[in-house]
């Protein structure tokens, strides 16, 4: 187990290395002079020179790469070309809303979707099952921004229960924080509830066909025990996989929601950086997202060993 953990962490190093190399080359191999790209159209030769020196562009490529990696390892992701603020600070300022929404979405989704899937599988073929599946199709097919605007119209404008947009840090109290992430969470949850409810239902249907479910029933155990103790735990592995990858996707996929609700998160930071060609920010965001994917995948694999005693690394 410990050996496996060490191996997996070691294996993550080349993965991140390849990502870093790609991110590095992104800037260096784009046609044209990176300094010119960075400086923009109206730069003076002196400005270009300064940028070249500051980026070490006069050094050989591999020296540049290792210098850059060395800085990364010390937490130095460079300085934004637009705002001149260190990238790490920018991300630090913007990450809280994104993490908050991602976490609340995942928690809300699991609370809603897993029971829905279990019930749909249990009542397989009945109207309950069909209702859950229909909900899931709607969740998949309605665009996020439509859901967002409909929710704003209903809960913020018509009913006036919740604010239309904006964000309050958790540090400034749970009430205002909760009020402002409720609608974004609901909005974002739709598609994940659809996905995870379907997944849970499919996994449960497979498991409910298994012989040990018949054994459990033959023991005279109540249906609830059969479903939760015997079926759900066996169905958990594929469901956890989807929840995990869903979480990783959330971090990088909240752009629309952040835009609709005017939240200062890293999704919008990324879009702004791409539009402004703020390369250091883009680089940092790519690295951050890949890092989250690698980390979440490791956690998923480790969770398997807790769920299924047959899986031992």
């Amino acid at each position, binding site marked *: 187990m410990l050996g496996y953990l060490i191996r997996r962490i070691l294996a993550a190093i080349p993965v991140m290395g390849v990502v870093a190399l790609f991110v590095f080359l992104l800037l260096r191999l784009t046609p044209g002079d990176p300094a010119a790209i960075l400086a923009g159209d109206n730069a003076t030769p002196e400005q270009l020179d300064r940028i070249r020196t500051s980026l070490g562009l006069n050094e050989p490529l591999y020296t540049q790469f290792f210098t850059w990696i060395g800085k990364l390892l010390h937490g130095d992701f460079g300085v934004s070309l637009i705002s001149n603020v260190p990238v790490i600070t920018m991300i630090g300022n913007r990450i809280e809303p994104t993490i908050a929404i991602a976490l609340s979405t995942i928690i809300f989704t699991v609370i809603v979707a897993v029971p829905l899937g279990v019930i749909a599988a249990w009542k397989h073929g009945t109207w309950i099952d069909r209702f859950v599946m229909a909900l899931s199709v709607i969740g998949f097919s309605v665009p996020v921004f439509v859901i967002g605007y409909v929710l704003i119209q209903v809960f913020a404008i018509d009913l006036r229960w919740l604010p239309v947009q904006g964000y309050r840090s958790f540090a400034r109290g749970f009430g205002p924080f909760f009020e402002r992430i409720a609608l974004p969470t609901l909005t974002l949850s739709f598609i994940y509830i659809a996905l995870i409810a379907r997944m849970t239902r499919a996994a449960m249907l497979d498991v409910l066909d*298994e*012989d040990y479910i*018949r054994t459990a029933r033959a*023991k*005279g*155990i109540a249906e609830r025990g059969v479903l939760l*103790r015997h079926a759900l735990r066996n169905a958990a592995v594929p469901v956890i996989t989807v929840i995990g990858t869903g979480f990783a996707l959330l971090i990088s996929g909240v752009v629309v929601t952040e835009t609709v609700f005017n939240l200062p998160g890293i999704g919008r930071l990324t879009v702004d950086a791409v539009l402004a060609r703020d390369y250091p920010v883009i680089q940092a965001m790519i690295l951050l997202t890949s890092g989250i994917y690698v980390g979440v995948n490791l956690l998923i694999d480790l969770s398997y060993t807790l*769920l299924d*005693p047959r899986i031992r690394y």
Partner: protein
Amino acid sequence: MTASTTATSSAPVVLDVNDLVISIGSKPDAHRIIDGVSLQVRQGETLCVVGESGSGKSVTSLTVMGLLPKKVLVPTRGKITLAGEDILAASDRRLRQLRATTMAMIFQEPMTALNPVVPVGKQIDEVLRAHTNLDARTRRERILAMMEQVRLPDVTRIFKSYPHQLSGGQRQRIMIAMALVLEPKLLIADEPTTALDVTTQKQILSLIRDLQRDHGTAVLFITHDMGVVAEIADRVVVMRKGKVVETGALDDVLRAPTMEYTRNLLSSVPSLIPRAARPASSEPIVLETESLGKVYRQRSTFGAAREVAAAQNVTLTLRKGRTLGIVGESGSGKSTVARCIVRLIDPTSGEVRLAGQDISTLSRPALRPHRKRIQIVFQDPYRSLNPRVTVGETIAEGPVNYGVPHAEAIKRAGELLELVDLPADAITRYPHQFSGGQRQRIAIARALALDPDVLVADEAVSALDVSVQAQVLDLLDEIQTRLGIALLFITHDLRVAAQICDEVVVMQHGRVVEQGPAGEILTNPQQAYTKQLLEAAPGRHWDFANFRPVNVQSTLASPGAV
């Protein structure tokens, strides 16, 4: 011989199934899966329900337990009385209370019948928690005592073990402990030993018999295996297509079956007495292995790699037109040897010679021309044929790969289907349109399409009903006579081996224990393990096909009878 001493016809009836009809759906004209079945099981008695697949024996038992899929299979007539209580009229809640307390069930596959993610002790504990108010300590003591009763070793360790850490026999013992921990009046055993090796089967059968004697349990024992019936039954019910064909005491049914179907069923059971030996052959050797071995290496981060020898030092010879059997229990390495010979896996040592040439180390391209000389038929005909390809294309695929024009290969496929006694129109149909036996014929036709010198049959008749099994064995025999093909026959079933093999190789733990002419090995084994295997063969004291007990003197199978 059987437990008949404990059962008397005056004992109270525990289970009474009367004129039961089960239909698909509840419409009055719906197809009947079970059609007017009646049977009784008395306290302390074992009633064996025998029948081939589709006879309705499992559906009957699931109905008693109230475990039928709701609204799919519906009891539309009849009555089931368990210890005085009408089961079909009972509520779901009442049925749940009756399960494990009054009636309990064990299933065929101990591998899949236990929840893989829950320790086995906890799974037994669930029964006690659902039906009693005992405290944790009493429950644990009771479970451990029950585990001792089913003769599990080291019960405190096994209590905490997960199913995958136990052997098949141990898992079935856990199932039995779980079923009997509350001392139910009725135990339903649905093919409980079918998935087990013969030696384990023997232990489990005697365990069920002993527990029955101690607790006076009524046992409804479902099986397709006449050998098992002869071992355990007091009375027998023969079922076919949802109807009871014949009922009677064990001896009466085996000695003097009154119905044609029962006679046929008994006649299909292959005899343990080897068929008359064919004269020694001087035909050329088509297949030889020399010290063949296969070692699996498991890599490990820390410490040395673990090695598992699945087969070692296997040397065998097969001549044209002859049949060589490899027999052994699961894990003996018999399938590994077969797969090495066909080069589906690569041997790690030794040689495999096809007509004199070593193919054990040939590269894949170099092996290609030799592939057609040796073909394999697998165990499960439901999974070994591609469901989306027509039978004709499946058979023609091999020859087409070797350059035969498509039209010609299809024509040949038609001829082969005729050879294996399938209708010519089978060629355009898909595998799911055929029964298990027919599919196995298709698999044989596919293997023959390449005109191989050697046909490897890896448990090729194990998944088939006895009557179908007899037909497929006859077919293989006929093909051998007509084509002069050599057969390498892998089986765990000594009866089958006795009826088809000229020579036999007995394997255990990856090694050859004993080898020689089938007539000698199966009647006068020299090695303890072979003797043990023969001893464990269920129903070996019955000569089913001739409706009489075996004359022990003539078999020499029992030790000391030589």
